């Protein structure tokens, strides 16, 4: 399993792996939104939590089809399916690798973009905390969507249509944590619910994704 994780990370970091693409996209969102809505600090402070979360979510979406598609095309997914690791484990490892190259950097970079969007002071800690708690759910839900669409040519658009509705609860609770944190209010309820969604998704979705991959490899 560790070999698989290292292999996925190496593939992502080397040329053409798309590492950094999500980060660049996230940066662009944070730059484009003030250009669109105007530079008033009060307006930006108000919408910053939502924009940062939506931006992170879309950046995460961007690289989802890479989780399985390339391995499906060159046949390594068949090898992984017949390997001694259960397919559920393969899905979990690949989702984890996806999180390491997208979710984690997004979480680390988000405070910098918070400055650009004039996020109020107490919000930074909760921005990082909510992204750290929520982005694993984005990766594993995305892995499920990618598993469903892996056999479809040009399935990228369909993948977004399938995955975005599934992202709704994560987005609501994640943005709520930052909004409340920025306003100095109590954040424990949405943060716990967010962590609950992540834990539930991590526990259940690898099974659904593995079932979908088995169907697609038939």
């Amino acid at each position, binding site marked *: 399993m560790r070999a698989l994780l290292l292999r996925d990370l190496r593939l992502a970091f080397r040329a053409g792996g798309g590492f950094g693409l999500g980060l660049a996209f996230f940066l662009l969102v944070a730059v484009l939104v003030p250009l669109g809505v105007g530079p008033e600090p009060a307006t930006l402070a108000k919408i910053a939590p939502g924009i940062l979360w939506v931006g992170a979510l879309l950046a995460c979406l961007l690289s989802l089809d890479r989780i399985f598609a390339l391995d499906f095309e060159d046949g390594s997914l068949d090898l992984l399916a017949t390997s001694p690791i259960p397919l559920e484990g393969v899905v979990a490892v690949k989702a984890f690798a996806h999180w390491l190259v997208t979710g984690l950097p997004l979480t680390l970079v988000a405070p910098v973009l918070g400055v650009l969007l004039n996020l109020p002071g107490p919000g930074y800690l909760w921005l990082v905390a909510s992204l750290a708690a929520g982005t694993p759910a984005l990766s594993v839900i995305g892995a*499920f969507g990618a598993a*469903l*669409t892996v*056999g*479809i040519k040009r*399935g990228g658009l*369909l993948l977004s*249509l*399938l995955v*975005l*509705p*599934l992202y*709704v*609860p994560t987005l*609501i*609770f994640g943005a*709520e944590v930052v909004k409340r944190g920025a306003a100095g209010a109590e954040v424990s309820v*949405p943060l716990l*619910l967010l962590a609950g*969604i992540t834990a539930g998704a991590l526990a*259940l*979705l690898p099974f*659904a994704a593995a*079932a*979908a991959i088995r*169907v*697609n490899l*038939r």
Partner: protein
Amino acid sequence: MSLWEYANPKKFMQLSAGVLPWVGGLTAVCLIVGLVWGFFLTPDDFRQGSTVKIIFLHVPSAMMAINAWVMMLVASLIWLIRRHHVSALAAKAAAPVGLTFTAIALVTGALWGQPMWGTWWAWDPRLTAFLILALFYLGYIALWQAVEDPDTAADLTAVLCMVGSVFAVLSRYAVKFWNQGLHQDSTILKVGEKDPIAPAFYVPLVVCIAGFVLLFVLLVLMRTRTEIRARRLSALLARERLA
């Protein structure tokens, strides 16, 4: 003799052919009686005027929008567990019907909301949850259309339907958390209150709900029969190509 005999497409076609005219007739009777009664023979509401009458379309279609998804979930489970093709085709057939009911509920709600709330749309939990439900329907239908092999498509959409159900319920409660509501709670199912709705409205509403349930059954049966015929046709064509 068991229920599963009707999982045989031939048996299903025989049974549904016999049942269809009856369901169709009952649907027509219920809908005509319910809607005419509701629209023309009930009094105007004290405050809402005649706009209250949109309830006879709005409430039944909203109920069926959710029930259709539940039916798809049950049919998907039957397909995954017992591999009956009719079940998978019924789930496929129900999805566009459910989407249409969702759209009717949203549109009639907007038409009522404009004079009553002063807005076509509000980011109210119920409205938002319905919009998200419509997105789930769209994704489900799109996945059916995108996958070429019918059995693969049936498997994948069934898995999507199960996961989607969990997330649809989660979203429902998440949006409740996210915003306070403008939409009133459901009145029909209020327990313990005597006559939550005036009987003059209640009876035609129940007739309309029965009509919408029957309409759903009718449309799903018809669409399932079409799907079975399409499946037979492609099997025939494939056989001819081999011969």
